[in-house]
């Protein structure tokens, strides 16, 4: 057996006449951070639910930590931790009680639990809120508590389903700090889904999923190469002459109009100093555009990731969280 802690082969899930996941296959190595990136409705959550034994696959096979998600559910459940898209805390209980119930459910010894709980709440900076009912927590605090809870029972794989959806940008980056710090400490494997492009950068590898299928899978850097190299835009006084010199000196084909030239290079930041040294006197300004995952997504699916509809869903979520009970 390989050292893959998640092995998925041709996983399919149908709901009546809708096929949410159409035969996805991938492997995730131990200690890796692996991300599913795609718009809402692409099949990300359905995949997580199948891997976490909450939904039965219609076809295909998945092993977590070597255990089959259909036939060895109990073993799979022991191997994983989950942070769901929507909070799954009991709001009437205190933070401590929520963690305590989790430890009981996962059969964490009470001595181990006490030490572990202190460590985890310290990591997410909730130590002084342990005895407060969760209903008085902000969205970000709830998330942090859930992340602490997800790590509590030493899982092999932690599933994070849109871990920062509905949170403001500062809270989001803070959450990622916690996740990375915990991951490094515990050498845990993380499987996450997101529709935030910038969050996908947190992954070692990304699978871009659209309409239930994986359309690309690679490191963020390699995925960006799919859309070509860095784009350098030069504002110059002598466009024609400079285009010739770029071709002659660097073998680059410059495109452009008027006094603007565009060239594509692999390492933009390394190329600019060379460019300036060679022909600095003719350059008025230089702009570097590094390809983003947005560009990759656009190129692969022909669409922008559907941010507007997504943020509408976020808004409903935030609204629902606010008026809960």
């Amino acid at each position, binding site marked *: 057996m390989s050292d893959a802690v998640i092995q998925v082969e041709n996983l399919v899930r149908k709901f009546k006449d809708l096929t949410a996941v159409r035969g996805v296959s991938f492997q995730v190595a131990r200690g890796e951070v692996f991300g599913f990136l795609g718009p809402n409705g692409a099949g990300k959550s359905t995949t997580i639910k199948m891997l*976490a*034994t*909450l*939904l*039965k696959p219609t076809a295909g096979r998945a092993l977590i930590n070597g255990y089959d998600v259909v036939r060895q559910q*109990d073993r799979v*459940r*022991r191997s*994983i931790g*989950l942070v*769901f898209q*929507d*909070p*799954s*805390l*009991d*709001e*009437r*209980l205190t933070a401590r*009680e929520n963690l305590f*119930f*989790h430890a*009981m*459910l*996962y*059969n964490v010894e009470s001595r181990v639990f006490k030490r572990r709980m202190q460590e985890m709440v310290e990591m997410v900076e909730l130590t002084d809120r342990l005895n407060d*009912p969760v209903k008085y927590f902000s969205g970000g605090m709830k998330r942090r508590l859930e992340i602490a809870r997800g790590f509590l029972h030493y899982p092999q794989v932690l599933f994070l389903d849109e871990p920062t959806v509905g949170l403001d940008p500062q809270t989001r980056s803070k959450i990622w700090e916690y996740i990375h710090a915990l991951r490094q400490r515990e050498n845990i494997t993380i499987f996450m889904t997101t529709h935030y492009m910038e969050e996908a950068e947190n992954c070692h590898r990304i699978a871009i999923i659209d309409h239930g299928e994986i359309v690309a899978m690679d490191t963020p850097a390699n995925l960006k190469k799919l859309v070509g190299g860095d784009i350098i835009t030069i504002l110059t006084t002598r466009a024609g002459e400079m285009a010739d010199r770029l071709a002659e000196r660097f073998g680059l084909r410059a495109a452009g109009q008027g006094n603007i030239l565009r060239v594509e290079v692999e390492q933009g930041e390394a190329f600019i100093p060379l460019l300036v040294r060679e022909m600095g006197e003719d350059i008025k300004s230089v702009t570097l555009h590094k390809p983003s995952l947005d560009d990759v997504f656009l190129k692969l699916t022909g669409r922008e990731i559907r941010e507007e509809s997504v943020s509408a869903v976020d808004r409903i979520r935030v609204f629902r969280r606010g008026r*809960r*009970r």
Partner: protein
Amino acid sequence: MRYLRGIYIIWLREVIRFFREKTRIVGMLGQPLLYLLIVGNGLAATFKVPDAPPGFSYVQFMYPGILGMAVLFTSIYSAISIVWDREFGFLKEVLVAPVPRWTVAVGKALGGSTVAVMQGTIFILLAPLIGVALSPLMVLKLMGVLLVMAFAITSLGITIASRMETMEGFQMIMNFLIMPLFFLSGAMFPLRGVAPWMETLMRLDPLTYGVDALRNIMYGDTPLRDFLVQFSLGLDLLVVAAMALLFVGTGALAFNRQD
């Protein structure tokens, strides 16, 4: 062991949550009192129960029925909270945990029935106020019957709630299941003297036997027995126990089902 652990955790959560909800405690005690004092006294003043023996008061008849009602409503309310848990996620936390799912159903049923019996017991302690004399042994027997009734009803509620997606369905369940079960249980009016079709329905309502068991225990040794009690205590207990077994089975099955 690990089965017991699952059951215990779910039960404990249910009980802790109950004590956190002050309004729920007040409401649970207030509603049956309201029924007993207002409806009971109001009906007693208007109706004359046919062939009532001397010394009979309508409130004495209604008291066990209201006790049954209190347990019925509390149990159903507990079970319905599953829908909240589903909507607000805590259920998922439990469903992905390495405990068998049926233990969640059983723990939930036990938690709901514990809460219902606590309420019922407080209500039993009010008996002297309305002229019903109870010995400590009778109180224990009553608590025992209430526990089995509550367990059966909570399990029934869990079976239904496990299929319900939203709270909107709850009103339907109340109107078309819980209220008929209550009205047909003989809690408010006796079986005898109603139209035959209605008597058949009342005999089919398992709750009838629960309420009758309570009357059996309360009035079995009094001259009122023949007038107030319908069946033998043995039959009553048999039906209630069978109902508990059946519904805990369906509840556990409903929970074990995986999409």
